[in-house]
Structures are given as structure tokens and as C-alpha cells.
């Protein structure tokens, strides 16, 4: 095995670990890793990250399910909203200044993080 292959396996290991442990966040590892370590452009990195995280999330879902960690009744409501919202988000993608949005998002995330830690 060459160096690149080791690097890719390691990126996967870390992303899978995070995505399994937190039920999210695999993309936040894979996208920058593909962009900065592999030189993939930002747009392709996002698309490729989805292909990677989908099977990992299926595996995590099975393990969560077998440990009774998925409340389906709640999940159905959230999924309905989520599917509709993500269509709208994808349509809005090229119509609003995403960089400003990212700064707002970053600030909300930091505030939320502190509340999660001190709850």
C-alpha cells in the first residue's frame, strides 16, 4: 500500500469514528481533508463526502437501532421537516451570500456549544 492509501484510510477512520460517536460531523472532517490533503475542489469534496458518509451512517444507524437509541416517532416528524428544508436550502444555495451565512452560523454554533457543555 502506498502513502496516499494510508492517508485515505486514516481520514476515513477518523471521520467514521466522529460520525458514529456524535451521529453527525463526518463531513466536517472529510471535506477539509479532501480539500487540503488531496487537493480536491470544494464543490467536489462536498459531493464526495456525501457518498462516503451515507454508508457510514447506515452502519451507525443499525448499531444505534440495536441499542434502542432511535425514537422513531420523533424522528418521523423531524425527517419530514428535514427533507422539505433541504430542498429549499439547495435551491437557495446560489442565491444568498454564503460566506456571511457561514460567519453567522459559526457564531451560533459557538454559543450553542457553550450551552451544551454547561447544561
Amino acid at each position, binding site marked *: 500500500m502506498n502513502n496516499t492509501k494510508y492517508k*485515505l*484510510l486514516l*481520514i*476515513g*477512520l*477518523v471521520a*467514521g469514528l*466522529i*460520525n*458514529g*460517536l*456524535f*451521529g*453527525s*460531523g*463526518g*463531513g*466536517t472532517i*472529510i471535506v477539509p481533508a479532501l480539500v487540503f490533503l488531496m487537493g480536491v475542489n470544494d464543490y*467536489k469534496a462536498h*459531493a*464526495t463526502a*456525501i457518498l*462516503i458518509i451515507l*454508508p*457510514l*451512517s447506515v*452502519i*451507525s*444507524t443499525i*448499531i*444505534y437501532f440495536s441499542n434502542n*437509541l*432511535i*425514537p*422513531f416517532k*420523533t424522528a418521523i416528524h*423531524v*425527517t419530514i*421537516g*428535514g427533507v*422539505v428544508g*433541504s430542498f*429549499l436550502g*439547495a*435551491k*437557495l*444555495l446560489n442565491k444568498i451570500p*454564503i460566506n456571511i*451565512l*457561514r460567519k453567522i452560523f*459559526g*457564531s451560533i*454554533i*459557538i454559543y*450553542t*456549544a457553550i*450551552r*451544551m*457543555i454547561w447544561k
Partner: protein
Amino acid sequence: MMLILIGFLSGIISGMGIGGGTILIPSLVLLNNIKQQDAQGINLIVFLPVAATALYTHYKKGNIEFMYAKSIIIGGIIGAIIGSILAAKINSSSLRKFFGVFLLLIGIYELFKKKK
């Protein structure tokens, strides 16, 4: 209704490629008093149909780097198994705090990342 709204808002964010789970999980935990592991489980379920749809669109446009994806998925499967088993074993309040620290790092990265 509240749950649909939370799903809707995090769906918009994730459709833009910013990361819906980082909004959805804390909203469920802080606003609806759902246990950390359950919130994570809900996020996994919500992600599946949304990701499958997005993937189909990206595939048709030829945006996917299959060459890199294969090896990352192999490493990822091992990681996903270990991570998910850990999540089931850790107590809920510790997991919430670890999640909070991870979220803090994402927030700092988003704020200080250089524009392309």
C-alpha cells in the same frame, strides 16, 4: 409542530452544505429535552433520505471522486463501528459535553476559515 420546524430549519442549513446535524442535535437536546444519544440517532435517520437525494443529483452532474471515496469508506466503516459502540456505552451527559467541545471546534473553524 416544533419538531417539524426544527427539522425544516436544519434541513435548509444542510441543503446549503454547512452541516445540518450541528444545528439539529443541539436543538433537540436544548429545546426538546431529548437525550443526547436519541438526538444523534434522530440525526442519523434524517440524514439518510436527504443524503440519498443529494447524492443522486451530484452523481448525475459527475461531481463525485470515486477514486478517493473507496479507501476512505473502508477506513470509515471501521471507525463508524467503534464510534457507534462507544456512543451507546458513554453516559448521556458526558457525551453531550464531548459533543459540545466538538461543536466549539467547528464553530471556531467556521469563523476563522479563510474565504476561497
